[in-house]
């Protein structure tokens, strides 16, 4: 006789009063498959926890973003933000889709070069570029975005030494009406630092100022701030043309577009409230088109958005280790997914969906990871169906930053699998092993061996 699927007994007090429109349950339908692959089969084959990336979603998202901008502005170029997810397979998809590379360290720069990116299509951002990094970037004719005066002087020095004319831009920070204002990177617009840097570059005659760059924040929920940034950069470019008779080739509005994740403390889900690519594109292109650029002199618009292009393509599969109750009677569920591999759970309320059928019954649950650390909390409170030990879950919208900011802490990092356009899974990063970790360590001879 076939037995009925077990669900633990649950009793829940019915509260009277107004229904809570914000306290909705996480999900109504089980997510049994991702791009045609059964979650249970993926876990059986590649283990739990397991990162999954959908090539279909990546390509459809970048296509949607390009369409939003290209229908509104004639010259658009995307540059893939390596720090968001620099797995080679992921970068290759974006490069196949026409994105340049945007890197912020020598390590990322080398990764892009090794992957085959043309040096002239690498944007080198960030406050730390060693003389060695700058030398490589100058020799490859990459676009160097200057963050501070010390870097500017280093480039002047290297330009002489290498007898090159490096292509540079400056990063400009500014007040766009959002709080907190990001002013730690680049040169300030309002207090004249940006003009100071521009004058130094132009009068040095050692480099070509090709662009102006701003990156006004992260997980931006206001497209209008980008409109302000675009206006200010346009004004700066036009003033440079007036003063130096020099044409600025591109305006780079950086990244920071919000994905569809839900920030902690938000009343409504990000899927309902966060701006779309069309919203950002409308604000930016309107500002640039309404500036005083002549029709044939419109600068190229570069966008370095990362999070909004990859977040939704990423899933983290996990399994239930145990259910227990806290001292106050609250339901606690422990998953095998910890904050060491889901760094973004510190600032998002990630959506969690069971990967198998469930009933309409649910419980308010605190979801913990497996680490022996008090901070290992995936969701402080979420309304989840009744999960049994061994049940599997899908954590959504994890494609951005988790596969770069993850930590080898307490446990090893899991496999990452890409499901291709034909729904075939490929391991694109192998699960770490103890040997991987030990191979980087050295034990001095006097510490080799002990008697206990």
């Amino acid at each position, binding site marked *: 006789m076939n*037995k*009925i*699927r*077990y*669900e*633990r*007994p*649950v*009793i*829940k*007090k*019915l509260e009277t009063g107004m229904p809570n429109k914000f306290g909705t349950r996480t999900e109504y339908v089980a997510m049994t498959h991702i791009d045609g692959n059964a979650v249970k089969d993926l876990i059986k084959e590649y283990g739990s926890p397991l990162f999954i990336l959908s090539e279909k979603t990546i390509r459809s998202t970048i296509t949607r973003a390009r369409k939003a901008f290209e229908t509104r502005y004639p010259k658009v170029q995307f540059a893939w933000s390596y720090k968001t997810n620099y797995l080679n397979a992921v970068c290759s998809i974006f490069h196949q889709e026409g994105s340049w590379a945007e890197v912020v360290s020598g390590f990322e720069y080398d990764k892009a070069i090794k992957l085959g990116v043309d040096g002239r299509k690498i944007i080198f951002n960030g406050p730390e570029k060693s003389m060695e990094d700058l030398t490589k970037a100058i020799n490859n004719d990459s676009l160097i975005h200057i963050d501070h005066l010390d870097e500017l002087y280093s480039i002047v020095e290297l330009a002489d030494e290498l007898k090159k004319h490096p292509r540079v831009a400056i990063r400009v920070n500014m007040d766009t009406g959002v709080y907190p204002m990001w002013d730690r990177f680049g040169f300030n617009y309002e207090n004249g630092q940006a003009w100071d840097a521009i004058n130094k570059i132009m009068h040095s005659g050692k480099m070509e100022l090709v662009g102006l760059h701003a990156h006004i924040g992260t997980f931006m929920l206001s497209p209008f701030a980008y409109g302000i940034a675009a206006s200010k950069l346009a004004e700066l470019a036009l003033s440079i043309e007036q003063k130096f008779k020099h044409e600025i080739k591109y305006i780079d509005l950086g990244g920071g577009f919000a994905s569809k994740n839900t920030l902690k403390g938000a009343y409504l889900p990000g899927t309902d409230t966060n701006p779309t690519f069309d919203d950002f594109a409308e604000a930016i292109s309107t500002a640039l088109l309404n500036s005083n650029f002549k029709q044939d002199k419109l600068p190229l618009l570069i966008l370095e958005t990362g999070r909004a292009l990859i977040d939704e393509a990423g899933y983290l599969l996990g399994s239930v280790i145990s*259910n227990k*109750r806290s001292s106050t*009677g609250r339901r606690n569920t422990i998953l095998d997914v910890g904050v060491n591999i889901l760094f973004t759970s510190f600032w998002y309320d990630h959506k969690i969906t069971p990967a198998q059928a469930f*009933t309409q*019954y649910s419980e308010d649950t605190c979801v913990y990871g497996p680490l022996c650390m008090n901070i290992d909390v995936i969701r402080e409170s979420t309304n989840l169906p*009744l999960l*049994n*030990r061994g049940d599997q879950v899908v954590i959504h919208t994890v494609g951005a930053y988790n596969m770069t900011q993850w930590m080898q802490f307490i446990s090893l990092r899991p496999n990452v699998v890409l499901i291709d356009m034909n729904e075939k899974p490929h391991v694109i990063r192998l699960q770490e092993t103890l040997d991987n970790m030990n191979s980087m360590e050295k034990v001095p001879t006097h510490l080799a061996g002990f008697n206990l």
Partner: protein
Amino acid sequence: MKLQKNVAISEAGLLFNPVTGESFSVNPIGIEILNLIRDEKSQDQISLAILDKYSTDKATFEKDYTDFIGILEHHNLLERNEKTNA
């Protein structure tokens, strides 16, 4: 172990405690266990009945059963002097 005398249980999954005026929703397996408790079955008998019908193991069910009884006690749905049998 006994349920409070006047507690009303509907097969649709609603439980009403007229003493406190509180209502609860209960899932089908919970209703089944409550009815077995009302029929004065022992924990072993309840365990056998559930394991016979549902795809789970004894250890999992006993853990969940203990947890369920704890919540019933928390909501004062069990007769106090009898709860030690749980």
